[in-house]
């Protein structure tokens, strides 16, 4: 990045006349575009924060606030303490499911990634081909048969209905296989000479070295599970099993248009943990998005 500056200044010497009026106009437009889009991206969120803190009586008043002008924390208290909408329970349900799904995927995907990337066994390439092929299958297509399957297994309206389909992911297997393959063979040979079994090679030698891929997969699996909407909509029936996204979508209809501030406070509570993690781990998460995005 620093090089760009140097290059720029070098050109400045050789092509001074090139830095015309147009150059500065272009520069200005680019910055306006960048900052404008950044503000546009953040505005709905800051509006939500500000409005969730407004007195419910004024929650619809215009002009809108993009920075908080009042601090009616009671909206948050009201949402948390509300007798018929158990927000903490939704929070717990979402968290529980997302954590179990993430843990399970990290384990199953890294195990399979190790097997496909590092072990030789008959049928390996065929089995791995199955995983690759299933990357092409969109979730919308497996929705109906999955529903019938969950129903036959008597898992309707349980959290198992959301956990079981998420215990593994073809993409995760693929991502981790690539990472296992990139590790040096000497590590494994040395460990084997020391008498380590396959499980120790996997767990103690190689797994700690797949950190970046593992954490990227973990972050995006967690987010996917936390944000899952169709699954809960399909499988959950009773209010006390609901997860956050579906509870909020229902809540909006349930509260009507009466109490915008409280609905927004509810949404804020649901994204607050993500916001907090993101502000501190921004670099990691952005890198992770790039790693998981590079699956092509």
């Amino acid at each position, binding site marked *: 990045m620093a090089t760009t500056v140097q290059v720029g200044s070098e050109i400045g010497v050789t092509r001074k006349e090139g830095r015309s009026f147009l150059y500065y106009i272009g520069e200005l437009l680019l910055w306006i575009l960048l900052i404008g889009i950044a503000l546009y991206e953040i505005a709905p969120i800051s509006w939500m924060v500000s409005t969730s803190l407004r007195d419910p009586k004024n929650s619809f008043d215009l002009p809108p606030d993009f920075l908080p002008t009042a601090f009616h924390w009671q909206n948050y208290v009201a949402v948390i303490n509300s007798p018929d909408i158990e927000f903490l329970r939704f929070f717990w349900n979402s968290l529980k499911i997302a954590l179990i799904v993430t843990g399970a995927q990290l384990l199953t995907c890294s195990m399979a990634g190790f097997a496909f990337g590092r072990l030789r066994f008959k049928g390996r390439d065929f089995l791995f081909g199955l*995983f690759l092929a299933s990357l*092409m299958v969109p979730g919308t297509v497996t929705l109906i048969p999955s529903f019938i399957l969950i129903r036959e297994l008597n898992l309707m309206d349980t959290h198992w209905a959301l956990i079981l389909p998420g215990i593994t992911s073809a993409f995760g297997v693929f991502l981790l296989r690539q990472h296992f393959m990139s590790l040096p*063979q000497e590590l494994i040979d040395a460990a084997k000479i020391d008498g380590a079994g396959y499980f120790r090679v996997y767990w103690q030698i190689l797994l700690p070295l797949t950190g970046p891929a593992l954490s990227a997969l973990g972050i995006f699996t967690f987010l996917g599970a936390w944000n899952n909407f169709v699954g809960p909509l399909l499988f959950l029936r009773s209010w006390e099993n609901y997860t956050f*996204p*579906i509870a909020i979508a229902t809540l909006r209809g349930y509260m009507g248009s009466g109490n915008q501030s409280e609905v927004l406070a509810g949404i804020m509570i649901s*994204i607050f943990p993500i916001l907090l993690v993101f502000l501190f781990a921004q670099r990691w998460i952005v890198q992770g998005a790039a790693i998981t995005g590079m699956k092509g």
Partner: protein
Amino acid sequence: MATTAVSGTKPMPQERRHGSKLARQERVAGYLFATPALIGLLGFTALPILASLVLVFLHYDLLTPPHWAGLENVIRLGSDKRMFTIYWNTLRLVLGATVLNNVLGLLLAVGVNRSMPWFLRYFLRTSIFFPVLTTTASLAVVWRFLLTQDRGVVNYLIGQIGLGPVPWLSSSTWALVSAVIYDVWKSCGYLMVIYLAGLQGISQSYYEAAAIDGAGRFQQFRHITLPLISPTAFFAIVISLIGAFQIFDNVWVLTEGGPGDASRVIAMYIYEKAFKGFEMGYASAVSLTLFAILIILTLGQFYGARRWVHYE
């Protein structure tokens, strides 16, 4: 791939016979390690796909036992005018979202990749990427408030410069536009990050050489950045197309598919046919059309990619 092939051929025949106990151990370990993921794959991807291929030929309403339908579901597809309307909506949504997300994503990536003070970079990256991490359904609730016709924030703001009010969610022309706006707001940050990773893989020396040859910024973008980013762009376009074809919660919360069918998309239609109309067989038939379209599109892109994707 290459490394496995090499290590696969390494052991000599007699060495392999000699180490057959080791080879057996390795084989057993391989199966054991692959089993958990394999069970998940077979149970929740392979089995469902096979099941939908069977469901297409059945009438099944979940309550009474399924019975044979022959090709009725498939034939019905041809005369389903609603499905064609909904596919048309989906197509417009997909095109709008894919084009805008990718153009904006690339522009933002080029912008953020420039030299700037760290706090500015932090601010830009944080604010542009954060919406990606939020829950689609919840933020759709927020946008629904923002886009309300009468007392909505967006109409208030454009009213300040003398425009509007626009019936964002209640008119058949604007409902889909609103879905595109929301999707671009939500996902352009993800595309930015993908393009950013692609940009950072381009060697700085190309730009230095071009600058010495007197190439301006626009020329550098046109003749260096664009060709070298094309593999990334190819990948980004494929995944955003596949994602956009399956948009569901966005529209479900924002417009509920309305007014009428004006913003209904194919994933919603499949969901409603299956779980509100209880026509599992027919819904599976529709879902397989989506599957076919996605496969054709993806393969078509791989084929077309030869013309415009440059690998270094």
